[in-house]
């Protein structure tokens, strides 16, 4: 039933888009049909796939790097209290600083290639994952921890069996926010450094008023965002399958 409503709403969106294209002017908002044709053209020329591949490479390398750094670091900050208390002020300060501010510095240090782009994605994704993992470990169920202690469990077992699994819902939220910011930063990186990928095409078509092609890129980015968050939501529901609905 939900799927049906969603399809109906999609139809309404496309209808609204069509009406807007008729009233505002086709050179500013292309018709859905013109956009579809432009999409087919870009696809058959291979430019769309190439750009998507470049963007995904940037996004995924930055996002996975962020995951591999943020989860262990956040877990350690939560597990070793003096360590966490020392670092958390700086982490929160860095999280509040717009990461785009670091782009000129990243370009100076890493150049304009994929390393610089992936690092900009990393900067965006790392903070939400880190902060949520940290919060999740700190929110460990004190009663379960005491139960585990009473069985004679050493700290390592308490951490791996009680604290870490309990933090997983927090980590999952961090991953979803991190993925969203990571995708934004992918486009930002592609606009600010060497112009490549979907962000590059976005700039190219936007600046030359090829609005049909421009719309194709926007829709592509939206689809990548949806697919990414749906994959993470699926993982989340698998991990949380013990929860009563």
């Amino acid at each position, binding site marked *: 039933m939900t799927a049906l409503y969603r399809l109906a709403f999609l139809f309404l969106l496309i209808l609204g888009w069509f009406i807007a294209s008729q009233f505002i002017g086709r050179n500013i908002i292309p018709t859905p049909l013109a956009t579809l044709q432009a999409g087919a053209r870009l696809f058959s020329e291979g430019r769309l796939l190439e750009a998507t591949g470049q963007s995904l490479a940037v996004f995924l390398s930055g996002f996975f790097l962020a995951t591999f750094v943020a989860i262990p670091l956040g877990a350690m900050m939560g597990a070793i209290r003096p360590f966490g208390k020392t670092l958390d002020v700086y982490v929160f300060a860095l999280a509040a600083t717009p990461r785009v501010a670091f782009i000129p510095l990243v370009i100076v240090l890493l150049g304009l290639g994929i390393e610089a782009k992936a690092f900009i994605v990393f900067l965006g994704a790392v903070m939400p994952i880190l902060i949520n993992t940290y919060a999740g470990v700190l929110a460990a169920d004190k009663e379960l921890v005491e139960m585990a202690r*009473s069985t004679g469990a050493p700290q390592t077992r308490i951490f791996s069996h009680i604290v870490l699994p309990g933090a997983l819902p927090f980590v999952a939220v961090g991953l979803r926010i991190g993925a969203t910011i990571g995708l934004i930063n992918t486009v930002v990186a592609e606009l600010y450094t060497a112009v490549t990928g979907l962000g590059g095409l976005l700039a190219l078509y936007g600046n030359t008023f090829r609005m049909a092609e421009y719309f194709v890129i926007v829709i592509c980015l939206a689809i990548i965002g949806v697919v990414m968050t749906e994959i993470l939501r699926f993982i989340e529901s698998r991990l949380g399958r013990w929860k009563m609905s």
Partner: protein
Amino acid sequence: MTEKPSQPALEFAGVSKTFDPADARPAVSNIDFALPQGMFISLLGPSGCGKTTLLRLADGLIAPDSGTIAAFGAPPRPGPEIGFVFQSFRLIPWASVAANVEFSLRSLPLSKAERTERALHWLEKVGLSRFAQSWPDTLSGGMKQRVALARAFAPNPSLLLMDEPFASLDAQTRELMQAELLSLWSEQKASVLFVTHSVDEALLLSDTILLMGTRPGRIVETLTVDLERPRDPDAIRADTRFIALRQHLSKKMRELVLSDPQSDFYGR
């Protein structure tokens, strides 16, 4: 742990514990008692008398400020020798029922297969083998506490600490659980220290009742329950000795609550 038969399973000597240094009154003060091996002792008292604190001290989860505690002659250490059953069940929600029972066996030198086998054996004893692979949250309160009992009994502890384990269950389930506990205990012969605020429960289960008062938590009376085992809940309630003890304890409990300045009923 060396176990000489003469040695008590648990012994408190002059034990005091204060949590809040600003509060002059300790949580428990000058506690003296011994739990002989194989005996069932209940700590009975109104809420706030430090019963739970005594259990945590007895498990070695916290250390006393003064006095000494010995479990089989040595300072207690949390581990498979001492089982703990909590009022709030404390099952691991993301682990299956079987994995929850296995958790307490991880401190023993057992292989994975031996752990699984022992866990299933204990689930069978509490009548829950069908639910071995279920999630704890799909079980009722009584079933959850049976899983917790299986978890506490599985490592064959010589000492069992139970913190109002049946207080959050409905009356019928509670009676069945008491019977279940007595049958497990009669096979196992572990020594039990059982915390409750129910006079009936204490009388039905224990060999000795330690009545506790509040602020500071202290033992005000030691009572021997001279009723033969096995005890049938219906027959025992009609026993004149039971009725006399019950009246005495209920009156004492009421006095303790009324004389506590922090009680809602103080001075009434």
